């Protein structure tokens, strides 16, 4: 198929751009991976605002002890939807299905993904899953937590069934994207694009895809069982019907722990690429970073039990899962060291994307190190299901994954739309996001150490000052997010024209015009150097 791309050059921008076609139909039925990526991102941004708003509402309720304005049920619904929406509709799909769809084919020198129609189907399934999630609200919003623990979730009826169906469909979308990416990376690399010349973003997406394809079916099956249990009273998980509630937890975490890596691995890929380009320096230890992504993807499958140290597993299982969990910490630590080492003797430019990466490194380091307390059997028993866990996973999920999304957004915005963003405003937004994040979640570590359980609608007065600070922090994040989105949309609408390669990047996406033409490449690219060869003698 590569041969078909051979077209002659005619002037500066002969083929127009992928954005040229207008009209709703040109988007809904497009087979262009770039447009599909943008549609994913548009849907995710909408849900991001909704999920974030829910968090602001319940954080306001939690500012003071006692009832403010939410009933316990309303509070429980809000934290459930906040989690379910942000995980399934935003953090999991955003980088791989959004940025990944847009950039993976360009980065390996392909015209599109291997199965463009399947790709379109993925985004449709994604939209249908999202709509179904909203539709379920009509049947009484669910208050099961995003974890759906049985038997609490086993007797709810139609609403839990519809939400499980929605997540089942979202999972199918995720599987199809993963499958597509694996085949694309194997079959559609341009001449000269050896495995050792793949950008680390591609390696990260490749590792993510493996997890998506292997783990997601288990979630689908589990939620289908839960849905059937709710609809027909079949006793899979409810002990009153002869089921086993802990079995659900095993099945659920068998997906949902690897899902943690679904969320963070693509972010790792973003960090590797952005830190190298903005430090103007070869990434340090390419193979260690690539291999650690794959290692994390595989080890991530055998650590799920660490969510269940107080749930009733045998001590042997507890000890084994704790041991394996520590294993995952090693490749993660290696990545952080390599990123910091990449900055050594670089020429670091403090652009907005670079600032987000610096924030990412600090926050993710805290997120990773606090994971040690939770992997440790002795301390986890005290900290499990407290605010310490809430803080820990927000440090990894928000602090790291969402910050990587912002880094990627500012880094690639000039490429995607051919426009520059307002650097000064973007940095102010970064300041609000970073400070707000620290204010929101650092106090939650202390709350958890004191023993404040999570998912509490009310708490004893002694915890109040820390909750108050946490809520103020969440308002700062709200300002930061809105400001950043304003910067992004203003740039898309009326930003200055961006050059094709504003950061001086070496990977293929920077060698094509901004915004890229529909076929990505004017001529079939032949790859002659690695994506990070900054400062190489006789080359770049």
């Amino acid at each position, binding site marked *: 198929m590569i041969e078909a791309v051979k077209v002659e050059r005619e002037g500066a921008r002969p083929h127009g751009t992928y954005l040229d076609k207008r009209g709703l139909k040109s988007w809904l039925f497009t087979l262009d991976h770039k447009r599909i990526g943008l549609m994913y991102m548009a849907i995710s941004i909408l849900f991001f605002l909704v999920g974030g708003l829910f968090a602001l509402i319940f954080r306001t309720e939690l500012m003071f002890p*006692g*009832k403010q304005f939410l009933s*316990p*049920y309303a509070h*429980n619904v809000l934290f459930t939807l906040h989690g379910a929406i942000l995980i399934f509709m935003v953090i999991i799909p955003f980088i791989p299905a959004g940025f990944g769809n847009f950039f993976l084919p360009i980065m390996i020198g392909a015209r599109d993904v291997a199965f463009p129609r399947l790709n379109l189907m993925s985004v449709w399934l994604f939209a249908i899953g999202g709509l179904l999630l909203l539709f379920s609200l009509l049947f009484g919003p669910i*208050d099961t937590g995003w974890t759906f*623990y049985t*038997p*609490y979730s086993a007797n709810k009826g139609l609403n839990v069934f519809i939400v499980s169906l929605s997540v089942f469909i979202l999972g199918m979308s995720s599987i199809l994207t993963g499958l597509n990416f694996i085949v694309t990376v194997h079959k559609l690399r341009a001449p000269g694009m050896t495995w050792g010349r793949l950008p680390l973003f591609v390696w990260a997406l490749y590792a993510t895809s493996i997890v998506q394809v292997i783990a997601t079916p288990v979630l689908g099956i589990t939620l289908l069982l839960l849905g059937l249990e709710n609809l027909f009273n079949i006793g899979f998980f409810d*002990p*009153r019907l002869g089921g086993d*509630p*802990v079995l659900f937890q095993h099945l659920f975490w068998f997906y949902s722990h690897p899902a943690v890596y679904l969320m963070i691995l693509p972010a790792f890929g973003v960090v590797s690429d952005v830190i190298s380009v903005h430090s*103007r*320096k*070869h990434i*340090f*230890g*390419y193979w260690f970073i690539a291999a650690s992504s794959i290692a994390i993807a595989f080890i991530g499958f055998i650590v799920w039990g660490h969510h269940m140290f*107080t*749930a*009733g597993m045998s001590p042997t299982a507890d000890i084994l899962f*704790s041991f394996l969990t*520590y294993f995952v910490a*090693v490749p993660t*630590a*290696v990545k952080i060291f390599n990123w910091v*080492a990449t*900055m*050594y*003797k*670089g*020429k670091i*430019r*403090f652009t907005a994307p670079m600032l987000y990466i610096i924030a990412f*490194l600090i926050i993710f*380091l805290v997120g990773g*190190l606090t994971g*040690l*307390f939770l*992997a*440790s*059997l*002795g*301390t986890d*028993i005290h900290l*499990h*299901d407290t605010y310490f866990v809430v803080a820990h996973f927000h440090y990894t999920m928000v602090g790291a994954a969402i910050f990587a999304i912002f880094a990627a957004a500012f880094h690639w915005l000039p490429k995607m739309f051919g426009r520059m963003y307002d650097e000064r405003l973007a940095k102010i937004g970064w300041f609000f996001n970073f400070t707000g994040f620290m204010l929101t979640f650092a106090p939650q570590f202390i709350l958890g*150490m*004191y*023993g404040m*359980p999570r*998912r*509490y*609608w009310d*708490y*004893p007065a002694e915890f109040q000052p820390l909750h108050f600070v946490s809520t103020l922090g969440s308002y700062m994040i709200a300002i930061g997010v809105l400001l950043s989105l304003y910067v992004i949309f203003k740039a898309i609408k009326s930003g200055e024209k961006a050059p094709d390669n504003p950061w001086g990047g070496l990977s293929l996406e920077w060698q094509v015009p901004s915004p890229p033409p529909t076929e990505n490449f004017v001529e079939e690219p032949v790859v002659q150097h690695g994506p990070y*060869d*900054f*400062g190489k003698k006789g080359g770049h």
Partner: protein
Amino acid sequence: MLLLFSFLPERASKYALDVDTVFLVIFWLSFIAFVLVVGAMLAFMFKYRARKGDEEPGEYITHNNLIEITWTVVPAIGIFAIFFLSLNAYKKIKWPEEVALRVNVTARQWGWQAEYPDGKKLITGTLKEEKAITPEDFQPLLYVPAGEPVEVILTSQDVIHSFYVPDFRAKYDAVPGRYTKLWFQATKPGKYPLYCAEYCGDWHSRMPALVVALKPKEWERFQKIDASTFNNSLASMPVDSLLAILRLPDEEFSKFVGEQKKAMAALPLHKRGEMIYQRLCASCHTTDGSKSIGPTFKGLYGKTENLADGSTVKVDENYLRESILDPNAKIVAGFQAVMPPFQGQLSEEEIQALIEFIKTLK
């Protein structure tokens, strides 16, 4: 170091120090790692910042296997050291040396119930008011001897709950349909808050309870009180009042217990029924006509109930008796079959008292 200790709750159980030691070791190792990594990053950010107009790339350095292997192996060693250290604490949390007292604790939506081998029973309820939780809202669930290992056998009536006493660093899930266990040894007498740590629905945050560790003398006294006296007149008492009784001089204490027994016997039947109601039924059945988890007791006696299967039944003594002992036999329309059977848990006299009490609620 002291500052960090102050962020952890009081250390009031035997293994709390082991847990906190692991906590501190991980904390300081992490702290060192954090300072080194962020310190290096900040130094590089300053030293290698691009000057204005400098378009040159950085130096061409791609990798260094020796360094990379070092920073793979060194953290791996540190991390596994933490694993073995924490294993030690885990062993202490998991396996008690010998057990002086075993108590059954059953969680439910939303409250706890403790049953002692001698039949003493304590029940805590749900705090459904809008006001914030205060220390007085923590109701006593367990009275245990300080300095002795206590094992708690956990289960749940409905969904998963979790028994969590931060001051003891003790936590374990209460899972329906099976028993789980945890143990602790309170190191000093005192009142220790107990929380539910596994999300269990609307009032998850409103089932506060207390574990009260008693001095040896008080514990001896506690054991001397017979179960029916305790259950009928002392179990629902505020902690401080009960502690005051346990601390009475010997003579006064025996006198008090004797009086309680007599008073109980002299009480009208429906009054005794009301005490049983407060202890066992009040969390699900109201007496003011409002709807709760179960039907209200107000005006119940003599009324004709519509049942879930479409039939009707007239509420008389036999129906009430059956509904107490085998509640799932006849379910009132509009309610779930969630009440536990009390077969074998109430004496014939207690059932009569309860029915007598229901009759008074016109």
